[in-house]
């Protein structure tokens, strides 16, 4: 389908034969696949139709189809709210009052405790323009080092490992279309059939062409059910499995020795490390039978085009970075990265998880994926911003550490929160909630009154995806246009307008624009020369070319759909092998906690559920939290289907309905993380951090189950 012709403001007149309605060709508000869709507005409502965009090829899951329902949700916030006193309820106030109050609190707390006492927390769902502006706002208007975002709970392990090996991090360094052409695909810790259903089309096509799909997952997920080979790995042992597969690749004679010699460094040390991961030892650590290890390696190595893809299952571990490195080592040994049709990639989760980690809302970064401790990067960005490089703060702490410090004597006293519902989504959420409650001041910009917004002193009603312009960068590194269908409802402002208004009150009005296009133009200049170079990308090019892949350093540069074909982004142009060792999970089983807990998503909900729990068909499909457990576990504990069960760890507990299934290992239970309140999975999870990426260990901790006797008690918050 041809995208509609753009007009000013991104709106187009519908074709003549349609009823008088406005429409916008845009993208789904949810995951990083960023499915193309057309929104149509009529008198009564807004309808969604999938577009034949290169990512979704005309497909949409139920989340996408129903995404417009939230535009008119009765639960939408349409007026700012503020709490007159700490112990008072939130009350409607005017925008002027709300913004004045936020600015006054910032000034007061900054004066009392210094600039770092005000923290900013962002999200991987924000547009590039917003992520960029938020980073600039923190460094220029607030002067605080304390800014980070929820992508730390999402992409940071893969990003760190990618940079370590390739010198740059772009989720997929090749277009999605390449996946459909692969002869073998190893998917580690990803349940795409539920998390990004249209992605399955590429896997199905690859399989139809005779390709093999290997899925590494403790659960026999809908994705694993489609696999040629399912490696049902013990939670927290993916690293050992990857080292074991590389060991087999060596002993079975599958190394691409020419590639290793020409394009990599560091193989010898890795060879010595994986010498200790012989198949039988690997089997004992991982539970994956030797025969299946052999088969997996054979499938990957004998394929002409092979890919290794990782997602949160492998990454959200206290050794997530090393786990990804181990899988990259395997890919390098087989000669995959930078070889047309093959490669390593990570499947980004959040809508703008990719762009969100490139433009400065991360504690250690400046726009263009630059490091904030690099003097040249500071000088460049400071020039674009018109400030003294020395005035820019240094690196701050990462997300969990930031949240952990809130309200403490040395930590931030105020927090400005955009695009995240962290009391549901952060690990050890009970503790994080305590920290948030201990703040002197909390301001939240959101669409609805989320669990976190309920705790705020000031709540600012924000515009939604169909009400604003901007760009998103999807899991392929393809920069896309988000288009506005119509103005936000009265009383609602865009995040950019909110930030610009606050900046003006703090005396930096001239430096901040609320116009997405103006912000993007500035972002182009700020990113120029950085690893994620957007300087050649324009709104017009994105329209004309179905998105543009970064790096794109000039307007006459075609963009970069496939990276690393000639060289890697390392100083010597070679990819780096990184020796990594298996380590035990941060919290292993004991008599009081005899089961592993792993967490994840279900098809019908997204992230903290703040959006999807407010869409009726999605809530009807999965109305409340549940815990998946094996029939043997159920029998031992006398638990029946639908019973209420408490999942108890050393940190807390969550209550959920029993879902008994033999698709899960009998030493593991699964909780989705889309709910707050009594069913909050992150009351249970372990905040043990990866030493490199600071990623928490969401994917494994030790728990026990307790059957709840009052079967009539509800679990939904």
């Amino acid at each position: 389908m041809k995208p509609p012709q753009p007009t000013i403001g991104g709106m187009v007149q519908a074709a003549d034969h349609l009823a008088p309605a406005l429409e916008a060709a845009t993208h789904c508000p949810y995951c990083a696949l960023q499915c193309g869709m057309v929104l149509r507005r009529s008198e009564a409502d807004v309808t969604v139709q999938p577009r034949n965009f290169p990512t979704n090829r005309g497909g949409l899951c139920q989340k996408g189809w129903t995404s417009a329902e939230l535009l008119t949700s009765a639960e939408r916030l349409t007026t700012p709210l503020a709490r007159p006193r700490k112990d008072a309820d939130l009350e409607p106030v005017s925008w002027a009052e709300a913004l004045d109050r936020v600015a006054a609190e910032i000034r007061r707390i900054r004066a009392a405790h210094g600039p770092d006492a005000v923290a900013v927390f962002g999200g991987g769902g924000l547009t590039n323009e917003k992520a960029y502006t938020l980073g600039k706002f923190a460094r220029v208007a607030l002067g605080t080092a304390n800014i980070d975002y929820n992508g730390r709970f999402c992409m940071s392990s893969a990003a760190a490992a990618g940079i370590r090996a390739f010198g740059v991090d772009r989720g997929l360094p090749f277009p999605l279309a390449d996946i459909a052409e692969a002869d073998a695909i190893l998917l580690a810790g990803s349940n795409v059939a539920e998390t990004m259903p249209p992605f399955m089309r590429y896997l199905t096509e690859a399989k139809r062409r005779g390709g093999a799909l290997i899925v590494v997952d403790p659960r026999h997920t809908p994705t694993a059910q489609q696999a040629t080979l399912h490696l049902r790995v013990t939670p927290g042992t993916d690293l050992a499995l990857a080292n074991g597969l590389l060991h087999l690749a060596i002993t079975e004679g599958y190394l691409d020795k020419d590639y290793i010699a020409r394009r990599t460094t560091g193989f010898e040390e890795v060879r010595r490390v994986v010498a200790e991961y012989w198949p039988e030892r690997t089997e004992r650590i991982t539970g994956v039978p030797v025969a299946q290890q052999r088969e997996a390696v054979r499938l990957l190595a004998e394929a002409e085009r092979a890919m290794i893809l990782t997602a949160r299952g492998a990454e959200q571990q206290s050794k997530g970075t090393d786990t990804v490195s181990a899988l990259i080592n395997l890919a390098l040994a087989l000669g995959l990265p930078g070889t047309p049709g093959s490669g390593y990639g990570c499947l980004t989760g959040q809508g703008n998880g990719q762009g969100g980690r490139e433009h400065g809302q991360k504690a250690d970064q400046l726009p263009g994926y630059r490091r904030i401790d690099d003097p040249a990067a500071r000088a460049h960005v400071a020039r674009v911003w018109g400030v003294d490089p020395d005035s820019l703060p240094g690196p701050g702490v990462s997300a969990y550490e930031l949240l952990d410090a809130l309200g403490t004597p040395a930590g931030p006293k105020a927090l400005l929160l955009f695009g995240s519902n962290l009391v549901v989504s952060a690990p050890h959420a009970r503790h994080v909630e305590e920290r948030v409650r201990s703040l002197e001041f909390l301001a939240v910009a959101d669409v609805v009154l989320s669990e976190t917004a309920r705790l705020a002193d000031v709540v600012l009603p924000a515009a939604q995806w169909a009400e604003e312009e901007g760009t998103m960068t999807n899991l392929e590194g393809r920069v896309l246009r988000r288009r506005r269908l119509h103005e936000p409802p009265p009383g609602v402002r865009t995040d950019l307008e909110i930030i610009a208004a606050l900046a003006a009150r703090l005396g930096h009005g001239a430096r901040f624009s609320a116009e997405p296009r103006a912000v993007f133009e500035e972002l182009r200049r700020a990113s120029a020369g950085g690893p994620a170079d957007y300087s050649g990308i324009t709104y017009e090019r994105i329209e004309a070319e179905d998105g543009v892949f970064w790096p794109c350093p000039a307007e006459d540069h075609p963009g970069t759909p496939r990276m690393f074909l000639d060289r890697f982004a390392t100083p010597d142009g070679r990819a780096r092998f990184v020796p990594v060792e298996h380590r035990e999970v941060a919290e292993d089983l004991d008599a009081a906690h005899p089961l592993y807990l792993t967490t994840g998503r279900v098809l019908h909900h997204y992230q903290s559920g703040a959006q999807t729990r407010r869409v009726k068909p999605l809530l009807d499909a999965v109305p409340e939290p549940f815990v998946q457990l094996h029939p043997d576990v159920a029998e031992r504990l006398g638990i029946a289907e639908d019973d209420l069960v408490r999942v108890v760890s050393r940190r807390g507990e969550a209550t959920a309905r029993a879902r008994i299934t033999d698709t899960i290992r009998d030493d593991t239970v699964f909780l989705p993380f889309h709910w707050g309140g009594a069913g909050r999975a992150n009351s249970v999870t372990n905040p043990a951090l990866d030493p490199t990426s600071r990623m928490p260990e969401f994917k494994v901790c030790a728990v026990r189950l307790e059957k709840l006797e009052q079967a009539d008690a509800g679990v939904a918050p």
Partner: protein
Amino acid sequence: MTAVNRVVVVGYGMAGARLARELRARARDLRIIVFGAERYPAYNRVLLSSVLAGKADEGDIALAEPTSRVELRTGVTVTAIDPADRTVTTDDGTVTRYDALVLATGSRAWIPPVDGLDPAALPEGVAVFRTLEDCRRILRAAEGARRAVVLGGGLLGLEAARGLALRGLRVEVLHAMGHLMERQLDPGASRVLTRTLRGLGVSVRLNALTEAVLCDQGRVRAVRLAGGEVVEADLLVVACGVRPETALAEAAGLKVDRGVVVDDQLRTCDPAIYAIGDCAEHDGTVYGLVAPAWEQARVVADVITGADPRARYAGSRVVTRLKATGVDLAAMGDTQVEEDEEHEVLQFVDPTRGTYKKVVIRDDRLVGAILLGENATVGTVTQLFDRSAPVPVDRRALLFADLRGQAARTVESPVQIPDRTTICQCNSVTKSAITKSWLAGARSVEDVIKETRATTGCGGCRDTVEGIVEWLAASDPQTTGSCS
């Protein structure tokens, strides 16, 4: 305990090399001195059978060097320990002081008392199978050889036999006992294993007592068995087990039984001297395997560096895995138990397919297992054994993988699908929703899709939706409903 500043490790095999790394990881400033009698760097002994089989070369089995600041002295043999002085003397004449000494001297191959086999001067064409040097020796002798005999049907003997068969030799295993791997297997498993090996070019002779090795001009020619039978061989591998290397400890006056006797902190009777790996005897057991040696290395490192002064080694659970291409064999725990009041025994035998499975359960826990042949459950079984976790309610799941979690996804006939079954997961479309759309006038697959959004997510249900629409077209449900 006085502060430990200098640790001396005797032995640079898999235990010693691992220990050096464990120590370094815990204590940056500790002085670590490692003596290794073999001249080359540490290698992975477990993989020697892969080298023998031609699956790995020497470069593939080199182990990671300890990180910097480990003083490594290879090609140097420790000749004496002076516990009073806390020093060791080496064959290059130097004396080295220690605060803590760890013996990781390993074991040596045992050569049975057989005529013609002088341990000090083995005939040409005869080799033990223990070190990389042994492996090289075997490979040199294998060149030009046609018939190989392996003395010993234990783990190492069978791995050597399989490796030589892969190199094209005719191989015969002579085993003195009534069944193969008699410590790990029961006679039934041995029978199936024998059959499997025969198919791979390795013949097995049981109850075969070797009387003499016959030579021709100093070169092996044949083996004579008790009873007089002669088995020709131009290569003879002796794999009759190992003995802990305890001479140094004995000479130093340490308590030695089968191995150097150690307590739960791997300490010998001298509190400054420890022993780990093949040379150590803990709680009456000499393991002779890598996994226990590495567990011991971890405990010793914790104790010596003070990282966890109360660390204890509680013994290891042993899982034996035969590394021989074409044979999948795992054995663990008590395998020779028969069914009785205390023990449940599950067995499945399919000799023509080379399958022998036996699982022994006591008090709902798995206490022993043999899995030979097709064994997709080996990962699960091993973990249950390791963790002493409760076994599945349906015991069959221990023997057959496809009972576990491979939720059957057979394509049902549309008529059999219950109405409430979700056909399209991505859009929560049930069979009844599809039927309803049909009744409301959607008469083609495309119309049904437009109405219900089925197939528009992952697209995986397309075939099922087409099947249902076909079935609806063929049998209008209203009509069939009134007929039934």
